[in-house]
């Protein structure tokens, strides 16, 4: 479903501070699978997620999503691809304080200009599924860590993307919440979505729910991973 071919990424290209974040990444990521990138800090996991999710461009290489090349898309098409294909859960969840859970979840629907009532119904259903129905009208700053994470997942899924991307989603959660997160992700995989995430957390990449673990070091895939 997602194919990366010789993907490299340099930061500060051509300057003395030039840094190679990714180098020659070749990777295939299947649909209906939970794929986890693991590796030490600075190994390029977040950069790779950002590039897969069309939030950053590679310096060289190509990326295909369902056969469509996304790495070279003009900006206007890239934004559409990003909205249509990917939901993103950030490490710190990036919920907007001052807005309620429902308002946060509805934010990604605004650029698509759909039917507002249908969006609200869909958001309410998703919040119910994630056990956040009673908190729909609560401001996000009053949520616990686990609730904030589920609100972020609901927001990432509101436009029904086929790919959910999560960057260190369990970094700030205790074991119980981390395992609860894995259960949620397993449910999403059962819905037919690809889930790609990064994690330092052995509880995550050691779980039997994970289909593929990709090890990274210094911007490269470890031997045997592709």
């Amino acid at each position, binding site marked *: 479903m997602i194919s990366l*071919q*010789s*993907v*490299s990424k340099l930061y500060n290209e051509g300057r003395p501070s030039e840094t190679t974040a990714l180098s020659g990444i070749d990777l295939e990521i299947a649909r209906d699978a939970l794929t986890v990138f693991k590796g030490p800090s600075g190994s390029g996991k977040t950069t790779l997620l950002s590039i897969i999710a069309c939030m950053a*461009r*590679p*310096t*060289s*290489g*190509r990326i295909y999503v369902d056969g*469509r*090349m996304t*790495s*070279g*898309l*003009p*900006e*206007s*098409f890239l934004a559409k691809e990003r909205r249509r294909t990917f939901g993103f859960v950030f490490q710190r969840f990036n919920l907007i304080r001052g807005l309620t859970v429902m308002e946060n979840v509805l934010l990604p629907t605004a650029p698509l200009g759909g039917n507002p009532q249908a969006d609200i119904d869909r958001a309410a259903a998703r919040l119910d599924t994630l056990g956040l129905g009673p908190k729909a009208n609560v401001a996000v700053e009053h949520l616990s860590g686990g609730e904030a994470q589920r609100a972020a997942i609901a927001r990432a899924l509101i436009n029904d993307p086929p790919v959910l991307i999560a960057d260190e989603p369990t970094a700030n959660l205790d074991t119980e919440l981390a395992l609860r997160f894995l259960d949620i992700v397993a449910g999403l995989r059962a819905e037919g979505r690809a889930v790609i995430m990064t994690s330092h957390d052995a509880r995550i990449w050691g779980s039997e729910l994970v289909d593929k673990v990709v090890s990274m070091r210094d911007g490269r895939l470890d031997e045997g991973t592709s």
Partner: protein
Amino acid sequence: MILQTPILALLFASALAGLVALWAGWFSFRVLRHWDVASGSRQQLTLERSTQLVSTLFGFVMLIEIATLFLFVFNADRMAALFVGAMCAVGTLNVNPYGFPALYLKIAVFFAAALWLILDRLDRAGYDYPLTRLKYAAILGIAPLVLASAATELAYFANLKTDVITSCCSKLYTPANEGLVADMTGLAPANALWLLANAGGAVLLSGISVLWLGRGERLLAFFGAGLFFAALTAIVSVISLYVYDHPNHHCPFCLLKREYGYFGYALYLPLFAGTVWALGAGLVRSIPCGDSLAAVVPEAVRRLTVLSLTAFLLFGVAVFWAVARSHLILLG
């Protein structure tokens, strides 16, 4: 040189357009040599990112070039008060040998710029840079035109001398002269209107064919160009006479003057726009388009055709109004 605001604005716009054209021309060489959309090389990805910037800036100066054609003509007419013998833009353009070449080059740049903008808009509608090579090859053709126009315009303004006695439009637009302009001026009013009506009819039929049958875009472009020349001939031969209520005043530039209510703009703006859109419809249909434009091209052609027909209709209304309100009786 006469340092007045419109002249400085025109020179600044030309200098900017010339610089951007040079830069875009240099970039076009790189695109034509190295563009390979199948490659994921660093060079290709850098070119892909840069095309957005270059296209946007070049498109911006092309828009300026389109606008400055009308500023140039307006300024030429405005300057008539400065030169002995000049009554309108014809006199000021005749002050030195660069005036009319500068105008003709600006008209050429106008059409080239407008067609390039149509090409650019279509290219941006495709997700895989479908017309990028063609667009940049076109820049290599347009850039020299822009530079020649800028140089001629500079030569024209630099050589304006107010002590020169120039000739007014009645000396140029008279059947007594020889050449194309004299032939246009001397064409019988009935023949000129017949020519205009036939060209307009051909455009209308080809436009209807495009809209209803989905074919005939190249014919529309051909007849649109034909209508442009037929209209210019008719303006010189007969329409100007009706506007001036005078049987011997053929000048196509005095129409732009205030005492005639700037009526020339009501003729020239839709005429130029209609011609560009008709040519654009033919151009869009003629270029090979991949899958990414398969759904876009028919809609673009339809829109250009509607725009073209609407603009030509407005031109027709202006002509009809000029004839209907005139006290001059030329026919019958």
